[in-house]
């Protein structure tokens, strides 16, 4: 793509020092944002010799995938990754189901008696949160402690996401919906056949918001899951990388030679915990430039 400058005629050309300064500042920002990720990947591929040599592991001299091999051989990390995938998939599906149906059900507050009150109740949740202990007591009294529902349900509907989707639904031309109604469609059919297909962009963005939330969550798991064998990957990461507790069951294959250094092992787990986000990010990014997100953030 050609680099098309769009400087209007009335604007003076910035001086060389200004341009230089701008470039340096922006370059510094980009480097600061990217560097930790690069360092993470580099260390995860470092061999024991690289780490022992000390100094910079910015690019390992003897890259090795041994850390990944021993992780993917099975054990805690693989199980935790699968748990996280399961929570994310089920949670996102549930969140989207509840949020989209509710958002559509609340689009005609003038027609549907009681729906204005329902909308106000949902919006009210933007103003307060019951707090950690009351939420814990609720989950406990519903007998959900130590079940995966305890990490899925507390965050299943976000009022913010509800408002964004509802706002989008309200923008769909009335005539489309009313003529479907004249053809005998009920509201469920209208939602499924007309409204949802017209809302793909906003649904994609909100699904990804929910999915990223479930994937990144560790606190609900920390609070509600006592059994470490149920933990999602973020909580295993906290235990292993941040608190330095060794992973008991990592199987080292003697045929693989020298065991991987702990740092590269830790960073390999971090890479695996980040990978799904890095994979969906480009998909999400397509929508940043479209109005969806700007409207969404303004609320």
């Amino acid at each position, binding site marked *: 793509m050609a680099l098309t400058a769009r400087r209007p005629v009335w604007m003076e050309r910035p001086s060389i020092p200004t341009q230089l300064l701008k470039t340096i500042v922006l370059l510094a920002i980009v480097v600061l944002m990217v560097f930790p990720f690069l360092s*993470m990947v580099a260390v995860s591929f470092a061999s024991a010799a690289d780490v022992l040599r*000390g100094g910079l592991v910015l690019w390992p001299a003897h890259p090795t995938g041994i850390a990944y091999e021993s992780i993917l051989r099975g054990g805690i990390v693989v199980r935790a990754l699968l748990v996280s995938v399961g929570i994310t998939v089920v949670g996102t599906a549930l969140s989207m189901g509840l949020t989209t149906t509710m958002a559509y059900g609340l689009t005609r507050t*003038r027609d549907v008696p009681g729906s204005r009150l329902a909308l106000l*109740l949902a919006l009210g949740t933007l103003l307060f949160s019951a707090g950690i*202990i009351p939420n814990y007591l609720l989950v406990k009294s519903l007998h959900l402690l130590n079940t995966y529902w305890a990490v899925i349900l507390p965050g299943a509907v976000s009022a913010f996401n509800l408002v964004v989707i509802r706002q989008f639904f309200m923008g769909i031309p009335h*005539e489309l919906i009313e003529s479907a109604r004249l053809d005998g469609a009920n509201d469920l059919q209208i939602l499924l056949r007309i409204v949802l297909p017209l809302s793909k962009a906003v649904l994609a963005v909100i699904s990804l918001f929910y999915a990223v939330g479930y994937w990144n969550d560790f606190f609900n798991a920390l609070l509600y899951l006592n059994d470490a064998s149920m933990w999602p990957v973020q909580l295993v990461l906290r235990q292993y990388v941040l608190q330095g507790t060794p992973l008991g069951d990592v199987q080292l294959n003697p045929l693989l030679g020298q065991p991987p250094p702990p740092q590269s092992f830790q960073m390999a787990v971090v890479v695996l915990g980040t990978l799904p986000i890095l994979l969906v990010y480009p998909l999400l990014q397509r929508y940043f430039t479209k109005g969806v997100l700007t409207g969404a953030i303004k609320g």
Partner: protein
Amino acid sequence: MAVGRAATAGRVERARRAGTLRARMWRERWMYLLFLPGLAYVVLFRYAPLIGNVIAFQDYSPYLGFTDSAWVGLRNFADLLTDADVGAALVNTLVISGLQLVLFFPAPIALALLLNSLMTDAVRRAIQSVIYLPHFIGWVIVVSIWQQVLGGDGFVNQLLRSQGMHTVNVMANPDLFKPLMVAQDIWKEVGWGTIIFLAALTAIDVSLYEAAAIDGATWWRRLRHVTLPGISGVVVLLLILRLGGILTVGFEQILLQQPNVGARAGQVLDTFVYFRGVVGGDWGLGAAVGLLKGALGTLLVVGANWAVKRLGQEGVF
């Protein structure tokens, strides 16, 4: 045909608001079917837990539950006034909030102005795609990779050591804890934060710049008299909302890192509730702090929204 159809649709719409309440509700049964599951969820998971706040007035024991635990009136609230840790947590919260206001709040505005001044769209888009990324990375991973760069055995210290210099563990220094939290916030959210300001900047009428330039205004005067007034509405809105959230500072972020520096330097109100209430088993006191913080926080948010409306801006609620 299309006109006729639209007219019929209008009639249908009017007809839908006619009839007895019962008839109207029956006619809209599908709408109820659609929103009631969500509503039930909101009531059960957002409103029902509020009842749990009663344990703020109890000497709660998980074995007895809140039906059988002893009532102690306001004793938990009296305790929290004299508990040194509560005071420290409040001070830490307010100091971090203050630092955020001074250091974090202006950062996305400045970055948005800088990005907006770029003339090449492709370059700007490339930079945007990099700086939005950290927003989507969870705190466990953010802290892990910061540790990898700045921790005791991290990249920077290895560099210092190889040069024969003193090493500093930024990640475990109580004095640096608060600025570190703000620095991490900036790293994670500055890019994402530019979105709303960039939208406001794009909305400014180009003819204003043109007219100003023709009248001989330099870039500084155009910034001062066109750009800044153009985004001041959004800036004030976000500033007031930030003030409304002054008692809430990054809970997950601090929960993960507070153990590195100890409670004196790193405890904030939310982590106090977790560490003292849930982990320490001091449920009543934890709930009292949580209730007070929640009530004050709601008042602040409502007050902030009221203030926004008073200033002639569209409020959030």
